[in-house]
């Protein structure tokens, strides 16, 4: 199943990447090459093999539900490229 230009545009939209025209062509070529290679997995019969999602993780451990000191507000905002007095600044996204 070869990747079309529309596939690239669709995936780029999902990934929030505004690719340039040249990049769209390059990525289409590269992704097709890589997918052709990874298709070798279809040679293996895995119908009775369970998937592995994690190794060595026995169970999510519990901890006591007690309040603790968190990152202070101003420190959390200190690395934001743009912030307003009370939070991270984003472009308006609700039509007025």
């Amino acid at each position, binding site marked *: 199943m070869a990747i079309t230009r529309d596939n690239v545009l669709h995936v780029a939209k999902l990934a929030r990447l505004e690719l340039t025209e040249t990049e769209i062509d390059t990525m289409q070529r590269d992704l097709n*090459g890589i997918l052709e290679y990874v298709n070798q997995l279809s040679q293996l019969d895995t119908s009775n093999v369970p998937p*592995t999602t994690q190794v060595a993780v026995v169970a999510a451990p519990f901890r006591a539900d007690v309040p603790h000191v968190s990152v202070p507000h101003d420190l959390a905002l200190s690395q934001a490229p743009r912030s307003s007095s009370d939070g991270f600044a984003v472009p308006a996204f609700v039509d007025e």
Partner: protein
Amino acid sequence: MTDVLDLSIADLASQVQKGALTARSVTEAALARIDQTRDLNALLYVARDAALAAADAVDAKRARGEALGKLAGVPIAIKDALCTTDAPTTCASKILTRVGEGNTGGTDPEHGFRPPYDATVVARLRAADAILIGKANMDEFAMGSSGENSAFGPSRNPWDKTRTAGGSSSGSAVAVAAGLALGSLGSDTGGSIRQPAALCGVVGVKPSYGRVSRYGLVAFASSLDQVGPFARDVKSAARLLEVISGRDPLDSTSAELPVGEYEAACSRDVKGLRIGIPEEYFGEGLDPAIAESVRSAIAQLEQAGCTVKPVSLPHTSYGIATYYILATAEASSNLARFDGVRFGLRIETAKSDLTSLYGKTRNAGFGAEVKRRILLGTYVLSAGYYDAYYKKAQRVRTLIKRDFDQVFESVDAIAVPTSPTPAFRFGEKVDNPLAMYLADVFTLPASLAGIAGLSVPCAPTPATASQPSLPVGLQLLGPAFAEERLFSLAAEVERRMGKVPRPPAS
């Protein structure tokens, strides 16, 4: 007199503890060497002032009569994927560089993201009185096998500056090989510690998944990432691993298991240990000089009393395909956090809406390989392809893990080459993503299985008309949490091979 930067970690720490050397003098020596070796591009940021202040604090602590830690005065370089409060953290990506109001200011590592907390491993190094001298160069977001994906230029291999240092922890390997630091930390998702260690002639350890906390490591593929040490000798690497290992409440995947006695294990007899040699790692594509060096190291282990027997890991060749589906899927999700809002780069105009802010910032901030992997990962997770690619790869991961489980029923460790070739030249693979991925063919399966691995130098390749003598790594693999056994074996190889000298370029 021996250069202080050529001492083992234990020897240097002991000199500082006794007061025979000051942490300040060691730090000054490391900083001087860093200045002399700028052309290697090993470090993205030199923490000059912070390092000197930390050294003075260690010396003052000793003057007060307090006991010093296991890494007293030891200069350590930290991969730039690990959060440090007193140094920028960029993952060698433009997207983690800060730009000023109105997008002024440069996209260079000096303007990098300043994390509000230290990674747990960094905090543990500080608590052991180590001196953090700088942030090591790497492939952007740890995606690459040559260092060439760094947004700030690749590190150079100190054995031949026209060659790469491997990757992704390229700067961490170079810093140790060239004597800028006695140890360093890297991260290994598919070979990113073991492969550059092999190519630079140093020891590199990929601990079992869960052995070391990942808190404060910028996530690439969360089910595979592990932090681990580099050093010029096995025992020094063992001490570093002892310091950074152990359960961390801030990482729920860190194992609730006691930390091993890795340093002590370096002196243990290896007689009677059973070593498996999987045929799949010695076939087509393996450089004959590497095969010979690795086989002679295995023969040394046999002379030391180990039993060597052939074994089979039949799904080895599926490792690359499995890895590049699973790791990119996880990366596409992990890297969603770089959105231009909370930290790092932000590209916007007065007319920008949220979607264009995201799309423009991410496209300008990420390099080509990172974008390629985000797109691939998004694709394999997307509706209609999830079962065919992602779910399929998870099932093959089970087969790869079972291969190792079965082999470890009859052997104690596996010995194979770390990399199919010695250090390659810049540009040799950079335009062909698949050729670059093949560089990791021998390290990926162990990552997928979550087992313990390390690379220790064996005999370098002979010099030829076209290339100088280059380092070779023997990769030792053991069951999950069997690091002690690997240190015993690696130390035996090192005793018989001798410590690798410092490269000519430094």
